[in-house]
């Protein structure tokens, strides 16, 4: 995926002014927030829309005949339509609100997996997966007697597709589940190729787009995937909400996952029947205000434009890789800037990432240190943890400079 010239360049400094979090000093320093891959900060516009919803239009949705319930229902369903447009789903009823990408993947693993997997079957993930797209498959495979296989990585941190045939020889592949962008290395994965391979095997393809949807256009029809999982909190939206997109035929044929209020058609002691999509998969009171906030975040991002966001992050990644390259004793992981999103992972020789992050924090620089929920990848890299700096549309170059400055101090402390 090459860098394309965006229609308009984004103005990070102006965008930054929308984010109240930057109005404070941290340890007396301006905040360099370089942990957006874990969760993004929130624009005022999104926060205001949620408060406005609670203050003027709040009630439980769907069943109410009165004005507030109608407004709340319209707000929730309006947000669903925004998510549909975001991922270009053919039908709004294919959008299911969940808590986060993790729940979205679990929904598919349980509801599809428990009923379609068995001994001799194979679920294929990659060595680059976040635990949330790894452990659910491992667990459900274990429960059903299916096996889990892993597509390995090249030394550059990209998927090594040379062994696909050998994997296919291990069993009947029923599910292929991979992320579109790695949260550890920033690698942009060749999802379209993997989708084609999965379909050739007669498998479904589950795309973990938690880390791509915030940063680039995700088009479920262009991807050809069968399920796509996203989280709002990584894309300027609130915590507590995410979405699963799935193909109508698959969703219709599936058993429900969570059971309870709202997802039924009729309930009898003898027999209960399920509601229509998307309700069948949305048991209990929905994350209503959160969905409204998700919608507001989508509006916010679309007004800026995903092309502009993606291009800007490539720039930042290139700048960061360049500046970090100036430092001695630094190991950089992952592919070159033009094949990665705005995520940079590294280690400082002789200094544990926790210590790096701690000393950076004291200088107002927030990065993540740890395994990033990617222990299989850490094993592959032969480390317990890495440092990770990640960028978003409000990131400015000064923050990367502040990081590099801070790393000089780290070296001094541990000299």
């Amino acid at each position, binding site marked *: 995926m090459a860098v394309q010239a965006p229609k308009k360049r984004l103005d990070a400094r102006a965008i930054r002014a929308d984010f109240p979090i930057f109005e404070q000093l941290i340890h007396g320093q301006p905040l360099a927030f370089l942990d957006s891959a874990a969760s993004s900060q929130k624009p005022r516009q999104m926060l205001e829309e949620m408060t406005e919803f609670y203050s003027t239009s709040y009630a439980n949705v769907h069943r109410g005949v009165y004005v507030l319930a109608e407004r709340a229902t319209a707000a929730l369903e309006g947000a669903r339509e925004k998510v549909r447009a975001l991922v270009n789903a053919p039908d709004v009823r294919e959008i299911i609100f969940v808590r986060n990408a993790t729940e979205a993947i679990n929904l598919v693993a349980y509801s599809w997996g428990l009923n379609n997997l068995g001994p001799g079957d194979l679920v294929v993930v990659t060595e680059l997966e976040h635990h949330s797209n790894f452990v659910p498959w491992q667990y459900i495979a274990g429960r059903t007697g299916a096996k889990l296989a892993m597509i390995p990585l090249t030394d550059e941190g990209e998927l090594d597709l040379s062994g696909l045939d050998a994997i296919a020889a291990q069993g009947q592949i029923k599910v292929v589940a991979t992320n579109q962008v790695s949260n550890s290395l920033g690698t942009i994965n060749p999802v379209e190729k993997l989708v084609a391979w999965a379909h050739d095997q007669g498998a479904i393809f589950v795309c973990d787009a938690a880390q791509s949807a915030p940063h680039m256009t995700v088009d479920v029809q262009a991807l050809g995937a069968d399920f796509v999982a996203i989280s709002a909190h990584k894309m300027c939206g609130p915590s507590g909400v995410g979405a699963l997109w799935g193909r109508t035929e698959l969703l219709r044929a599936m058993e429900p996952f969570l059971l309870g209020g709202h997802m039924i058609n*009729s309930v009898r002691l003898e027999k209960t029947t399920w509601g229509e999509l998307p309700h069948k998969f949305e048991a209990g009171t929905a994350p209503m205000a959160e969905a409204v906030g998700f919608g507001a975040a989508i509006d916010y991002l679309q007004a800026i434009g995903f092309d502009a966001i993606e291009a800007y992050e490539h720039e930042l990644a290139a700048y960061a890789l360049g500046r970090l390259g100036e430092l001695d004793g630094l190991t950089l992981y992952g592919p070159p800037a033009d094949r990665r999103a705005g995520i940079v992972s590294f280690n400082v020789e002789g200094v544990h990432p926790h210590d790096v992050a701690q000393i950076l924090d004291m200088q107002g620089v927030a990065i993540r240190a740890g395994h990033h929920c990617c222990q299989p990848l850490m094993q592959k890299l032969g480390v317990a943890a890495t440092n990770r700096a990640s960028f978003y549309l409000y990131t400015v170059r000064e923050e990367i400079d502040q990081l590099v400055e801070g790393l000089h101090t780290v070296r001094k402390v541990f000299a």
Partner: protein
Amino acid sequence: MNEFDQMYREVILDHYKNPRGHGEMENADAEAEGQNPLCGDEVSIYVAFADDGETIDEVKFSGRGCAISQAATSMLTEMVRGRKAIDVARLDKDELLEEIGIPLTPVRLKCAMLGLTTLKVALHKAKGTPLPDGLAGFDELELS
């Protein structure tokens, strides 16, 4: 005229209190049941065709529901008698809505559509034609 006089205008209340075509039918040529899971309302629709096997000769309905759903279904029976099954199976819902003639919120729209959707299902089933996607689109209505 205030809002509820508008919504519960005379003709609606009249159809509700004196529903046309209310009742069941033995040996119906077409028949279906629908229910609205939002409120538990149910309707059964029965159709008898004329000798040509195409024209709707008689429509009856039974079940329980609110004034809007009952009145709408009652009006529907008057609207479709004498028409061709194929045309009714494709009936634009706006035609019924115009007849009902009152502003409907999304929730009440589902009430108003329960009878029509169930009738369409009955006709498609009788004719063996596939349910159009737009019908499955009444996603709050359970049809059987």
